């Protein structure tokens, strides 16, 4: 059947086939995002001895669909003081990198859309572009809350990006490659070979930075509903708001996926007697995402000066020291411990 399609489409075939593969990534991702919102409400509900949403569908299972439809029917308000074009550009610029970064994520040994050599660098570049959505939204809204929220958020995101970048350098040193698939393969050999162990401080720094990068609680001062209402997206409504919402959750899944790939062995099985499988990867991502929700239910919001102090004065020195330590150890006969 595929040959027939190939003949029919001729030179367009690679385009169509790639599009099919992209859709095969994007659609499950959208579904995951939708159900992550439900999972968040359910998990936090149970942690607070509530039931969470349970009316729409069996046990609330159709809640995300209902939410989506509701947002679709809501008016997209564009404030008169706002800059129209940029106001609508903001959410697009927030979500495009959050999705585009998935192009290089390997799901399995062979299951990867774009197997480029500089995969990790590409993802880092894409996530650094994501900050534009926040800045533009805050400025274009021409509202004080939005402006303050976007300023805070931008400064926070860039601060934690440094710590994140340093943490990634440690992984590169161990794996000797920027290709995510090769990074996973370098960890083969079971649970104790994964990089969370030799790079433990970097793993912790990476994960906390990931929470801060995605503006999630307890680092959600950019939204800070009790002080600046909703931060940079206070003026957004309807689908324009929904796009921001999607971007935040897509980013969460992305950073959890990266953590699973770089520190927890990706699709590799923790024990030798079970086969490697994509299910392991999905399980690891789900477990990491659970932590995101758990953090939100547990920790009170950080103060802004505390956030900046943690990023600059704790994480950067810790990662620098650990990078040099690992680099130094690699020159000794204990180098095998860090590969």
């Amino acid at each position: 059947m595929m040959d027939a399609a190939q003949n029919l489409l001729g030179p367009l075939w690679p385009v169509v086939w790639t599009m099919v593969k992209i859709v095969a990534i994007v659609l499950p991702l959208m579904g995951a995002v939708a159900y992550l919102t439900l999972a968040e409400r359910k998990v936090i509900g149970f942690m607070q001895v509530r039931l969470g949403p349970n009316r729409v569908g069996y046990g609330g299972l159709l809640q995300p669909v209902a939410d989506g439809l509701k947002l679709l029917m809501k008016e997209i308000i564009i404030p008169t003081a706002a800059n129209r074009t940029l106001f609508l550009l903001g959410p697009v610029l927030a979500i495009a990198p959050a999705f585009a970064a998935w192009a290089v994520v390997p799901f399995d040994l062979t299951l990867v859309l774009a197997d480029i050599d500089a995969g990790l660098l590409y993802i880092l570049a894409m996530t650094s572009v994501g900050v534009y959505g926040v800045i533009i939204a805050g400025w274009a809204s021409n509202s004080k809350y939005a402006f303050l929220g976007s300023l805070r958020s931008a400064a926070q995101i860039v601060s934690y990006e440094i710590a994140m970048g340093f943490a990634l350098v440690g992984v590169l040193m161990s794996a000797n490659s920027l290709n995510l698939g090769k990074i996973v393969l370098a960890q083969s050999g079971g649970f104790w070979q994964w990089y969370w162990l030799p790079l433990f401080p970097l793993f912790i720094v990476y994960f906390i930075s990931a929470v801060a990068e995605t503006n999630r609680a307890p680092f959600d001062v950019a939204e800070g509903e009790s002080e600046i209402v909703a931060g940079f997206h206070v003026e957004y409504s309807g689908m324009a708001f929904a796009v921001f919402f999607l971007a935040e959750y897509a980013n969460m899944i992305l950073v959890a996926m990266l953590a699973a790939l770089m520190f927890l062995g990706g699709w590799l099985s923790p024990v030798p007697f079970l086969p490697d499988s994509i299910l392991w990867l999905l399980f690891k991502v789900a477990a990491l995402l659970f932590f995101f929700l758990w953090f939100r239910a547990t920790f009170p919001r950080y103060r802004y000066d505390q956030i900046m102090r943690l990023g600059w004065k704790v994480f950067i020195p810790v990662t620098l020291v650990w990078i040099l330590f690992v680099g130094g150890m690699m020159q000794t006969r204990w180098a095998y411990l860090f590969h």
Partner: protein
Amino acid sequence: MLENYFPILLFIIVGLAVGVAPIVLGKLVSPNRPDGEKNSPYECGFEAFEDARMKFDVRYYLVAILFILFDLEIAFLFPWAVVLQEIGLFGFLAMLVFLGILVVGFVYEWMKGALEWE
């Protein structure tokens, strides 16, 4: 090598479409009833009393500048980390000098209180 980047080009376009499509759809489906009060900037019920785009603390600029410098440092660290095994001790010492000089800057920054957020 380039053929591997073709899906990325497509994916970036799809990513933009994922952002544009819901907004266009929402614009088409949802009602549009503009109203002077509704479309005014939100300010907890007050009339907005000045332009929202104000001058702000110079500290944010400082963070942005320092971020650029550290980002460059990371850009230098990436190729180094990939080939560390090949260039061995020599490469490690080269980076040690590089980072040592920058740590001087970091310590200066710290001591000056540029990382203090008050």
